[in-house]
């Protein structure tokens, strides 16, 4: 527990992916099994249960600390776990602090009645930062700025393997990952996960270039809509005694818990066997696609309520199959995979534009010439639910990663507005000490209201100029945030605007980035909020 707490402590404050990775690598190399595996699980969010409830913690502290003093402290600290970690009044340091795995085992086996007293005993032998680590670990509230994907990257580096190898294995192995770590250290064979429901690294596309459009030869390509949802993989195995189903994000995070409605729709009435489908997750009302904003509401909820699933039902537009009915298809060309997919939809009685199914087959579009392709792009982009076109080589086999010349995405042109810089904040990593994160606003009468924040789209040279401008034009400070004179116009590009209750302006931009810096433009000529609102998709 001591080493784990030290690691968290350092990770919490360390900025930059590389430095964090270094700390974790150091930990992996110096910590024995099974502790290090549990630590990985805690960081990657793969622990299966809460050790104790938040309420248990609150009850324990209110039994021990004056409620007024607790309230004043909490008000200042701003977070319960940390307040409790500092306020816990008993401290009997124990030289033999239990190991992380002992803690995990204890809470896994302790009876419900003894959870609170067990936790209290642990808190008493720990230092404040160890207590904080335990409280965060136990309620699975660990946020240390290391996403699951980075953990995999670090494991890959640790074992000198490619990350795709880790990703292939990841969902077939379980904490404390002793077999995985032994393999990475060269002390054991690769874990066998042939029968497990696992994530398969996905194939990605390149942005299309003008020359690709000009050279378009109709019969060589499969054209589909590009939808504005999230890329997911639906993996099922009904050959097991206990059929397993899972939904993974494109980075391999298991998001099954958030989409039970979709998973339930793959039921015993269907021919499934062993299956891996690649598709776009969306909120769909029958075959009608809702906005990304509607999906966002589902993504934000770990466990959706029945009401939310009813108003925002999840659907999947399937565009590829890696495994169907137990047959591996990744080495077959796209045209073959597509035929297999169509046959599977047929076999399961799912018609195109089926109103009841949650699964929908991605529609194939056609264009007979480069000119027609351009016209098609223009036509589909009129539909705001569509983000553009996917153009895939019919002969492409399914290769994880981003192979060249196989798949192209042709996004709609971004929307742009002229906004005024309002606040700036320093960046991280190589940009630390540079003001590189900008909040910008649009006019409402005489007032600017913030509409978004962007930290990309400019060159290093432009960054230097922007940083300099911020320093010379700062007029206020709120913690790390500098307020600047409302004088610099930024042309901001983004993919969509959504109504938002969270922001005072009432709008949220999707993927905003700096398109151009309008050194020349007076701030009062920037766009108004109503200009921005007019771009909201209906």
């Amino acid at each position, binding site marked *: 527990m001591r080493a784990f707490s030290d690691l968290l402590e*350092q990770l*919490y*404050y*360390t*900025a930059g992916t590389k*430095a964090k990775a*270094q*700390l974790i690598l*150091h930990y992996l190399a110096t910590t024995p099994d099974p502790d290090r595996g549990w630590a990985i699980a805690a960081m990657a969010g793969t622990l299966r249960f809460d050790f104790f409830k938040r309420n248990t913690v609150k009850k324990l502290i209110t039994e021990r*600390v*004056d409620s*007024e*003093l607790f309230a*004043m*402290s909490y008000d*200042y*600290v*701003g*977070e319960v776990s*940390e*307040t409790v970690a*500092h*306020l816990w009044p008993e401290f009997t340091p124990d030289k033999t602090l239990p190991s992380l795995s002992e803690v995990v085992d204890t809470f896994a086996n302790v009876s419900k009645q003894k959870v609170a007293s067990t936790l209290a005993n642990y808190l008493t032998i720990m*230092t*404040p930062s160890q207590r*904080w680590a335990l409280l965060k670990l136990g309620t699975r509230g660990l946020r240390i700025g290391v996403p699951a994907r980075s953990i995999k990257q670090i494991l890959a580096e640790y074992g000198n393997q490619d990350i795709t190898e880790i990703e292939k294995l990841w969902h077939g192995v379980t904490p404390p990952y002793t077999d995985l770590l032994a393999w990475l250290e060269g002390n054991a064979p690769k874990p066998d996960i042939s029968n497990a429901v696992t994530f398969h690294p996905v194939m990605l596309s390149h942005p299309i270039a003008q020359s690709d459009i000009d050279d378009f030869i109709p019969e060589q390509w499969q054209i589909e809509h590009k939808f504005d949802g999230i890329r997911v993989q639906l993996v099922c195995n009904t050959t097991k005694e206990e059929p397993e189903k899972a939904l993974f994000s494109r980075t391999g995070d298991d998001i099954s818990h958030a989409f039970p409605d979709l998973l339930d729709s793959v039921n015993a009435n269907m021919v499934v066997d062993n299956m891996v489908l690649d598709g776009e997750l969306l909120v769909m009302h029958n075959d009608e696609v809702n906005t990304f904003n509607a999906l966002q509401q589902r993504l934000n909820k770990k466990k959706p309520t029945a009401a939310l699933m009813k108003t925002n039902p999840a659907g999947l537009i399937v565009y590829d199959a890696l495994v169907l009915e137990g047959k591996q298809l990744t080495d077959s060309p796209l045209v073959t995979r597509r035929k297999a997919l169509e046959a599977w939809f047929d076999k399961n009685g799912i018609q195109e534009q089926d109103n009841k199914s949650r699964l929908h087959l991605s529609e194939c579009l056609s264009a007979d010439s480069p000119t027609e392709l351009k016209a098609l792009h223009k036509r589909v982009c009129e539909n705001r639910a569509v983000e553009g076109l996917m153009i895939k080589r019919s002969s492409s086999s399914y290769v994880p990663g981003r192979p060249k010349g196989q798949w192209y995405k042709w996004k709609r042109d971004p929307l742009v507005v002229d906004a005024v810089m309002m606040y700036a904040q*320093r960046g991280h990593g190589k940009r*630390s*000490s540079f003001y590189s994160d900008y909040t910008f606003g649009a006019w409402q009468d005489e007032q600017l209201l913030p509409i978004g924040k962007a930290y990309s789209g400019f060159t290093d040279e432009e960054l230097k100029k922007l940083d300099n401008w911020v320093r010379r034009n700062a007029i206020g400070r709120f*913690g*790390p945030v500098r307020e600047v004179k409302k004088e610099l116009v930024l042309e901001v590009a983004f993919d969509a605007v959504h109504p938002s209750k969270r922001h005072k302006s009432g709008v949220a931009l999707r993927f905003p980035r700096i398109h151009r810096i309008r050194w020349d433009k007076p701030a009062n000529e920037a766009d108004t909020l109503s200009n921005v609102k007019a771009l909201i998709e209906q």
Partner: protein
Amino acid sequence: MTAENTIHPSKWMKTDDAGLYCVPGDFYIDPMQPVDTALVTHGHADHARAGHKRVFAHPQTMAIMTTRYGDDMAEVQIPVPYRESVEFDEVTTTDSNSASTEQGQRKIKVTFYPAGHILGSSQLLIEYAGYRLVISGDYKRRHDPTCPPFEVVPCDVLITEATFGLPVFAHPPIEQEIQKLLHSLDVFPTRCHLVGTYALGKCQRVILALREAGYTKPIYLHGALLKLCDLYEREGIALGDIIPVSEVEDKASLAGEIVLAPPSALADRWSRSLPHVRAVLASGWMQIRARAKQRNAELPLIISDHCDWPELLQTLTEVNPSEVWVTHGREDALMYQAQKMGFKARALSLVGYDEAAQEE
């Protein structure tokens, strides 16, 4: 002590825009504006300002003030060593309550005692009209090789600071924090460890703690820290091998070294010339994660020259005054706690003690 010739301190200690004022003695304690007579508890800028006519302070505090503000920082400078007293004649007022009416003029006697905060830091005992009032100034109760320890001075009224006046504040031993820094140097041997420390007190204490932990390599200093380090050395506090960063020609050679700078320099352009900086910040505020994060500290060291909560309570118990006045900091919690412990307690709000501007 009879009722008619005693006057409760609440009648003769006042606060105004300049700070804490002793009415019969016509002097201020740590005033924020230029005044005729100032008694200064210690050299931090939120206590010691330039431009007063007369300054009374411990000789080391006086040396700090002249180092910072120049030899002419006050027209008259009267050094007062620990446990020595100065007397002020009572200013005759029209107040009928004045104690001088029957017995001729009385004196206001002020005695300086060590406060354990930084070099020269003092508590002030004011004796007048049958009462003993102690102004703690900033203080701590832990060992500090740069100054003698806080002395318990019995009194009727204790004016205590409450910078870290919340039960969440319990500062770990400095040795433990220094080990964190040394461990980080092990894990990041190629990164320049830039430690943000206040120029006065914290800087020298961190250097000494590093030396005590066996760190004998040179320690590099930002220019703003040099003058006060020199002063400490002149006062007989050996800091070992210290080198100004400005004298290092090849800044890349500072990889894996410890550089000390004022906290403001951490995010400043100045730090860009240093190789692969790891931002370390030594301050009592570092105990609260979000605070440390806001300050962009990658490695926060909880090192404070103030009392933590247990030390504040220890002091109340040991000094055992009949009344506690709580000043700058989180007064609410300490007042609440003092009342729970049976003391009469009130808050004394003073101007100018802003957390952000506060030197520790």
